[in-house]
């Protein structure tokens, strides 16, 4: 029972982080029609920035804020420097067909990932380094009894919860959120109502950059920081997003928690080596049985 509870708690806290990563992917997919494979590379880069600040004896919270802001800037930069020029080129011979139109941005995002990883390698050495937590990461003691979760777990779940509330409010309760939803749903009509589509796209990339940067900050304490540590989170985030339906924000969050629990159970009751296989099985099962995911909108195919 003890083991079961601890698997549940660590799965929930991990799942919260995966939910953030999935959320970041879904934001860009809805907003700009691109699955951003560079996303966790961006997060890795901003985590290195935070780690450098902490190394120079600045406080954790200053580093935290700086990392989130630079995550947003990096997201906007990726859009403005690569993705927007690419989307303007859509008339070229090579991008004529829908198959290539969805393939080319994927290749571009892999190039960005490569630049971020090699850049981090050049700037911050190849050796791994740890990353601190703002609060204690030992089992929480309440009334003399050690609980199966840590203060850091609570911090992670709390932070992610607040982020989700803010994001939901932004999309449902503000004019700008409405404009973003409109341009994701129907760019042509949104443009006719005076919404600047390009800016909305850049905004999606910015928000996604902040969310994934937060995911990076929260997940790194449990692994060492190195240029390729967060690749696994990308895979899990992608699977979580597909499980939830690639275009549903709520679905991606549910998918994130589901994968967190699954991975935690594989870790505890099976062996950590099976994680990749479990992810692959879940991904294939969802894609073959219910390709639109739990909450995604069903794609209309004409043939």
């Amino acid at each position: 029972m003890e083991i079961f509870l601890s698997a549940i708690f660590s799965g929930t806290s991990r799942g919260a982080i995966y939910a953030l990563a999935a959320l970041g992917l879904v934001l860009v997919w809805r907003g700009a029609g691109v699955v951003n494979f560079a996303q966790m590379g961006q997060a890795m880069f901003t985590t290195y920035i935070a780690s450098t600040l902490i190394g120079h004896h600045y406080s954790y919270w200053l580093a935290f804020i700086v990392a989130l802001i630079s995550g947003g800037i990096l997201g906007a930069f990726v859009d403005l420097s690569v993705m927007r020029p690419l989307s303007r080129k859509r008339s070229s011979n090579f991008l004529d067909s829908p198959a290539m139109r969805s393939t080319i941005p994927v290749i571009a995002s892999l190039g960005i990932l490569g630049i971020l990883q090699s850049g981090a390698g050049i700037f911050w050495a190849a050796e791994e380094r740890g990353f601190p937590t703002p609060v204690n990461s030992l089992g929480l003691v309440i009334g003399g009894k050690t609980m199966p979760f840590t203060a850091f777990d609570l911090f992670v779940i709390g932070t992610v919860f607040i982020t989700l509330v803010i994001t939901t409010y932004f999309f449902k309760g503000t004019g700008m959120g409405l404009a973003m939803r409109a341009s994701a749903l129907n760019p042509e009509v949104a443009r006719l109502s005076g919404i600047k589509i390009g800016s909305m796209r850049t905004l999606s990339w910015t928000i996604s950059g902040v969310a994934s940067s937060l995911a990076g900050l929260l997940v790194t304490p449990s692994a060492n920081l190195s240029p390729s540590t967060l690749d696994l989170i990308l895979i899990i985030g992608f699977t979580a997003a597909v499980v939830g339906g690639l275009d549903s924000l709520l679905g991606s969050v549910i998918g994130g928690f589901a994968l967190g629990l699954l991975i935690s159970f594989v870790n505890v009751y099976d062996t950590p080596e099976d994680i990749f296989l479990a992810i692959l099985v879940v991904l294939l099962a969802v894609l073959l049985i219910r390709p639109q995911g739990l909450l995604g909108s069903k794609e209309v195919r004409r043939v």
Partner: protein
Amino acid sequence: MSRTRSYGRKNLIISILFAVLIFILSIKLDPYNLGQLAVALMLFIGVLSIVLLTGASGQISLGQGALMAVGGFAAALAILNLGLSIWVAIILAVIAALLAGLLLGIAAARLSGPYLAGTTLVIALAIPSLATRFESVFGGDVGLNINFGNPPAWLSSLMGSVGYEQWQLLATLPFAVLALLFTSNILNSRTGRSWRALRDNEIASSLNGIDISQTKIFVFVISSGFAGLAGVLYGLRGIVGPSVYPISLSLMLLTGAVLGGIRSILGALIGSILVVFLPDVIDSIMKHFSPSEQVANYLPAMISSLLLILTVVLNPGGIAHGLHRTRRHL
């Protein structure tokens, strides 16, 4: 009909010229560059698998490295457990990769674009991790040792002493030539045209009687066979193990394909030579600036990623497309 036949003759002549050129290089180069050229030829076969898959039929795969691993492990098991010769093992490896490609293709035919990219990326990570999971069979992190063996006696008596690197290159050459000939013929055939039709417009091609999912699966199978062949040759350099077929290998193949020109066979050759020799060129230039170790380690990856983005944004047709355009302007 006559047009197809003349294409066939042209392809045959080009393949023979290619073989002669590489053969001359195999006598001239030093051992290090012989080894590198052999790797470039192996990757050429792998990059051709992407030209067929992504260039011709518009499906993306980030998991070609996993299919290479399937080929490599199948051959290693055949050589070590069944005691077969490497030539039989190579054939078995290609068959194993074809079967893996069939399974993958059945799943992949229902996916497109980013879904396919993500799924194949997961496969690229999951397949090599099986090697550590079933350590007793696949040799765990260390891997299994196989190699090209010694050059046969008739070759040594024909060419004087044949070094191991030279033998690697000469043993790879016939497979690269076959791959080249096969690719150029299939792309100029009715089959190749149906693949391109599928890429350009699924609805129109289905109205013209092309079975979409059957065609997609078929492309995947053929492409996997190529990847498997590349993988077994790549493993025969010494080790078959998860560290030989990392995710970066899959991305390297994709980079080579895009830089050279994703729709061109010449581009595949240029791209694979580029990804193999570019790090050497950068190294020899950087030596004059005595860079720190981490700069020397990461600079080649940085430059090839930069080239990848520039190619995609500025010249998506790659170098081969650029050459073609220049020739037309002259």
